[in-house]
């Protein structure tokens, strides 16, 4: 196990380095360059002059390998540099948004698992019945409906027509004056729509996964044996079949780890949600290299960590996987 872990870890590091290099090169090759976020030209503002000063101050006039070398050197001290846009440390900018995005995604992922697994089981157990079809229809609507449209419609309904929920943002305007309890309540109210909508969109994948996994497992010999023993159907499904059917879900969980820090740009824009998606997207659009590299590196790191974790968990939970040099 130790050797396996070491090998996987070393490989992960090399991959991470490769990803940062790729990100760096792609950003360099991409057309365009540093620009302000505004898409208007002003006759009195010479943005070109500003950009030239910028380029010199931030080494942008040096060859790419020099820039990349310096970036790596700084990274070794965990210094991601400063954003071109407002000159604040990249880590600070990320640490401001990461908690928001994590909160939203953990809640929504939790909700997805909470709803999708039972839905998947329902669809599998009642295969080819009206239940199965209803579940399929529901999750596919969630999957196919454009998030921004759904979001706007629900905002109109709950925010404008009924007036139950706030429309956008994460805090009320007077959030600083609220007591701890009301402040939590306030945030909860702001989170209802974003969590619901992002969870709705994520239902399809997981519930289909559970459904198909379960259907496959149900055909296995040991399930037939369990049934033959005369066990009640509920016990067959929940004790024997489901536990095995859920193994791939572990992989899915591992793979959703990077999703936890990734935010959707359009989604966050609509909800005026201060999350990672807008940070990354705006940085790409403005060619804010340090932020792009920072967000990219952290996302890559978490993806790889997720994969590693999934591998290790697999080795632990799935008896079919043996390490110690045997074939995999």
């Amino acid at each position: 196990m130790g050797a396996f872990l070491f090998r996987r870890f070393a490989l992960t590091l090399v991959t991470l380095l490769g990803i940062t290099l790729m990100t760096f090169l792609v950003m360099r090759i991409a057309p365009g360059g540093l620009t302000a976020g505004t898409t208007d030209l002003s006759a009195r503002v010479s943005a070109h002059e500003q950009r030239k000063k910028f380029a010199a101050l931030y080494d942008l006039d040096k060859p790419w390998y020099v820039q990349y070398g310096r970036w790596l050197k700084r990274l070794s001290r965990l210094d991601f540099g400063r954003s071109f846009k407002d000159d604040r440390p990249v880590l600070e900018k990320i640490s401001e948004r990461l908690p928001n995005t994590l909160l939203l995604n953990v809640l929504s992922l939790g909700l997805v698992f909470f709803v999708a697994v039972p839905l998947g089981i329902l669809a599998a157990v009642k295969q080819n019945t009206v239940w199965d079809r209803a579940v399929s229809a529901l999750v596919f609507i969630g999957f196919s409906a454009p998030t921004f449209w759904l979001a706007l419609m629900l905002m109109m309904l709950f925010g404008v027509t009924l007036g139950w929920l706030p429309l956008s943002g994460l805090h009320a305007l007077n959030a600083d004056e609220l007591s701890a309890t009301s402040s939590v309540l306030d945030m909860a109210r702001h989170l209802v729509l974003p969590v619901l909508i992002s969870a709705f969109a994520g239902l399809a994948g997981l519930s289909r996964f559970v459904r198909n996994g379960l259907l496959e497992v149900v055909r296995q010999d040991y399930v037939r044996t369990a049934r033959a023993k005369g066990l009640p159907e509920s016990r067959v499904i929940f004790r024997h079949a489901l536990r095995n059917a859920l193994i791939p879900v572990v992989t899915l969980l591992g793979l959703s780890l990077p999703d936890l820090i990734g935010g959707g740009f359009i989604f966050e824009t609509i909800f005026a949600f201060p999350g990672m998606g807008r940070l990354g997207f705006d940085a790409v659009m403005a060619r804010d290299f340090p932020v792009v590299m920072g967000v990219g590196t952290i996302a890559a790191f978490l993806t790889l960590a997720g994969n590693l974790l999934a591998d290790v968990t697999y080795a632990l939970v799935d008896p079919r996987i043996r390490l110690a040099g045997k074939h995999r």
Partner: protein
Amino acid sequence: MDISFPNRISWLSGVAVIGLLTAGCGQDPIPEPALSAASESPVTGDTYVEASLGDPSRLNPLLASDSASGSVNSYVFNGLVKYDRDLKLVGDLAESWDVRRNGLEIVFHLRSNVKWHDGAPFTADDVVFTYERLVDPKVMTPYGSDFALVKSVTALDDHTVRVEYKEPFAPALESWGIGMVPRHVFVGKDFNTHPANRAPIGTGPYRFVQLKTDEKTVLAANPDYFEGRPYIDRVIVRVIPDSSVQFLEMRNQSIDTMGLRPDQYRAYDAFFMNHRKFRYPSFSYTFFGFNLTRPMFHDVRVRRALAMALDKREIIDGVLMGYGRSATGPFPPSSWAFDPTVPEVPFDPGRAKALLAEAGWGDTDGDGVLDKNGSPFAFTVITNQGNKMREQTALILQAHLARVGVRVDIRVLEWSSFIHDFVDKGNFDALILGWNLGRDPDQYLIWHSSQRGEGRYNFVGYDNPETDRLWEQGRRTFDLDQRRAVYQKIHRLLAEDMPYIFLYYPESLPVVHRRFQNVETAPAGIGWNFREWFVPWSLQRYRLAS
């Protein structure tokens, strides 16, 4: 991160919404609020909530060029001069000034009762310091070009500053409207990265309280403001990056003001129950620019023909929904430099065809596209992504030019590469873009032949010795009437020579919540008297806890 698909959808649905909203409503004017409050005397209190699409980058008037920062900075900082309601320059931090030696020297007499928000007195040293940063090559300011002609800035005493110019520069006075920054805060520290750029200290009517990235900026009334404390207690600028959501937030009274798109302006009256709509001309224009280094655009008859083939009414009615007017030149109608006698280019496809034929373009191979010496009259017009009005304008233009046998392809480019790889490098046939203008009519940077070259603003490559001379003269002339004559001449010359087809002057379409009193439109728009706005006690929505 594939956003092209949702973007397209949102464009389509945007059009559908436009259709929906405009189909039923006959644009009835909403009756004015029946407030008896107008006679009430002003009281303090309440909060004014603005919405901004972007997050402010730097709360420093020398470093910021984005509109989000600009809107916050305008509350926190003052320049030496400012524009009043009638767009006349008046003193702000300067009480008065003398222009001497034919404009080579300006002496500003500063107010003596001004304090920075941290209590330190505002003095002439701050003005000198601000100037030094503007011309400091290490400072990342985009405003340096206005001060390139300054020879020296000297503090004569604590409240008198002398500015000497290398040559007379008429826009000089306006340029001193830039926000003054406090020397005692920045001195000896790095200007670009100073923490005060996120927690500014100014002299303005509002003090900085809090900045929450991508959420809001909070400002509070400055009780020591030199013109007197403003009535509104707090100003909050909320970041809401989507215009449709801003619109819903407005409907919900969560924001008190926003700038509307024409389709939003024409929405159901129900949307404006609590808000008053305003419209006034903005200081900007949208144009179709030819790359004049391309041989096909060398002939002025061709440029004229293309202008005649284009029915601008369709753009104004279809794209602006009537909230704007056809442009005749580089100065907006509310500018004193505007010449109302410059004629419109008539819409006349027949005459356009004749002019093109005169210039040697005919359809010899009968494919519907004009050609000359074997090559077809076809070109690509580029514009930037994210501005639906420009994209729609391009579509209309394409259709109209096709009718006279000119084939136009449209390419919509992401802003950063649009500017860097196409506009800056002159790598385009034609483009649709807009200019935001200062109140001073000087547009030397856009039109003078010395301003061609990579990254400069004369990207169409216009080279006309006559207008060059006039732009120079306009910068040297201080007498308003003489200056007006110069710019009116330029207006006429550019309208005839057509380096651009000047398309339209759009209008600003803001709304303000009805509870605010004393909101008044003037040539300067709204907000010029914000200090006098107030909300009667009974109508106040936000009460401070403490």
